[in-house]
């Protein structure tokens, strides 16, 4: 039985097959509207995340399956002190596949060790969020046609942003990738990432100002400065407005640059950018559903 814990659990070839299926679903949704008839997805969300949960629920519903679950730890048996291991053993009796989000790192992996059904890590603290990475890759591949040879700018909170770390790890597997990290000193990408890039001879630059590098980018991945990652309100307030993408900055960018964002946005992308054809973040949310549909089918053995 296969689970998804880490975006690197799938090889590049397996990802290609997954993305081909996602694109096939996009083109012909009616063909896939009943492939999961009679199947149940359990969404076990120990911390709130409306977007990811709804994306999973939408994916399963569009495949003809049904969804059960809970949306925060207070409404689950975890509030009574039940362990993740026990919860998943019980959920395995109720559902065919489980998407789990948990504030503690590694919780979905603990679940996968005791589970009788495939478990998808839907985010474990600051650790991994593999379906976001799959979403990002599918968006790039669908809109650009390939995943290799890009200069990718990552901007904002590069220290705590797990989506950024996962995306970097996933993109280094494609030849010709080059990174430009754009962040304040306080939110720089961690050392272990830059060490890994040096070991793999993947070129990267670290810069402070977004304007200076805009013309070089094939892709700009914006991130939110997340309040919950800060211990101190003052630091959050000081840093949150540091990097705001607006039309003036967009004028410096190439015609075919894509702007991606894992959403939700707070104010790091001005709403005036939304109408720019290069703004791909809402299309990205749509690809998030397609990739989760393809993933559910693949893990349930319904992809072939």
């Amino acid at each position, binding site marked *: 039985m296969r689970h998804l814990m880490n975006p690197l659990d799938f090889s590049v070839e397996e990802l290609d097959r997954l993305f081909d299926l996602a694109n096939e679903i996009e083109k012909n949704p009616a063909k896939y509207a009943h492939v999961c008839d009679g199947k149940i997805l359990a969404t076990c969300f120990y911390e709130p995340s409306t977007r990811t949960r709804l994306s999973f629920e939408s994916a399963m519903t569009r495949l003809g399956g049904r969804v059960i679950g809970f949306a925060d730890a207070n409404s689950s048996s975890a509030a009574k002190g039940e362990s993740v291991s026990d919860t998943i053993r019980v959920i395995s009796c109720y559902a065919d596949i489980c998407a789990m989000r948990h*504030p503690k790192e*590694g919780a979905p992996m*603990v679940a996968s060790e005791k589970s009788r059904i495939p478990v998808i890590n839907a985010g474990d603290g600051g650790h991994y969020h593999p379906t976001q990475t799959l979403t990002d890759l599918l968006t790039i591949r669908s809109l650009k046609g390939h995943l290799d040879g890009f200069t990718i700018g990552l901007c904002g909170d590069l220290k705590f942003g797990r989506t950024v770390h996962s995306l970097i790890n996933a993109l280094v597997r494609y030849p010709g990738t080059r990174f430009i990290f754009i962040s304040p000193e306080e939110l720089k990408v961690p050392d272990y990432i830059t060490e890994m890039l040096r070991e793999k001879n993947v070129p990267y630059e670290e810069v402070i100002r977004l304007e200076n590098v805009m013309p070089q980018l094939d892709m700009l991945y914006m991130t939110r400065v997340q309040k919950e990652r800060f211990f101190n309100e003052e630091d959050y307030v000081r840093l949150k407005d540091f990097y705001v993408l607006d039309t003036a900055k967009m004028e410096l960018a190439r015609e075919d640059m894509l702007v991606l964002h894992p959403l939700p946005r707070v104010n790091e992308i001005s709403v005036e950018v939304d109408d720019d054809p290069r703004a791909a973040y809402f299309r990205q949310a749509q690809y998030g559903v397609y990739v989760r549909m393809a993933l559910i089918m693949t893990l349930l053995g319904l992809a072939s």
Partner: protein
Amino acid sequence: MLNVGKIEEGFVLDHIKAGKSLSIYEHLGLDKLDCTVAIIKNARSEKMGKKDILKVECDINTLDLDVLAFIDHNITVNVIKAGEIVQKKELVLPQQIKNVIKCHNPRCITSIEQELPHIFVLADSAKEVYRCKYCEEKYRENAIF
């Protein structure tokens, strides 16, 4: 001078850092084995000044000693058969170590999940880096149980 007799079959773990033999006794699970064990503390050593020695009389296939490589590289493992040293065992870093070191990442599931073992996986054998199986936090010194 205290004398402990020869063993017929088993292991002599020599050059253990003085005072560490009891922790090694526990990590090897010797408390669970029904065999004769001699723990010699603070023996005189030319090389180390003081050292500990463990003598374990057992079938030489019953004990997994790999964890010693993680705990202390300098331990000498003598394999004994018919009362003679038949091999000086090379210690290899184990791929996985269970309940020897503790994950101190407060965000890790090991901090709350009932009776979940603390498992570390060898992530880089050249640099001897172990990471928590669940949160991938790098092992830091002084995290030994």
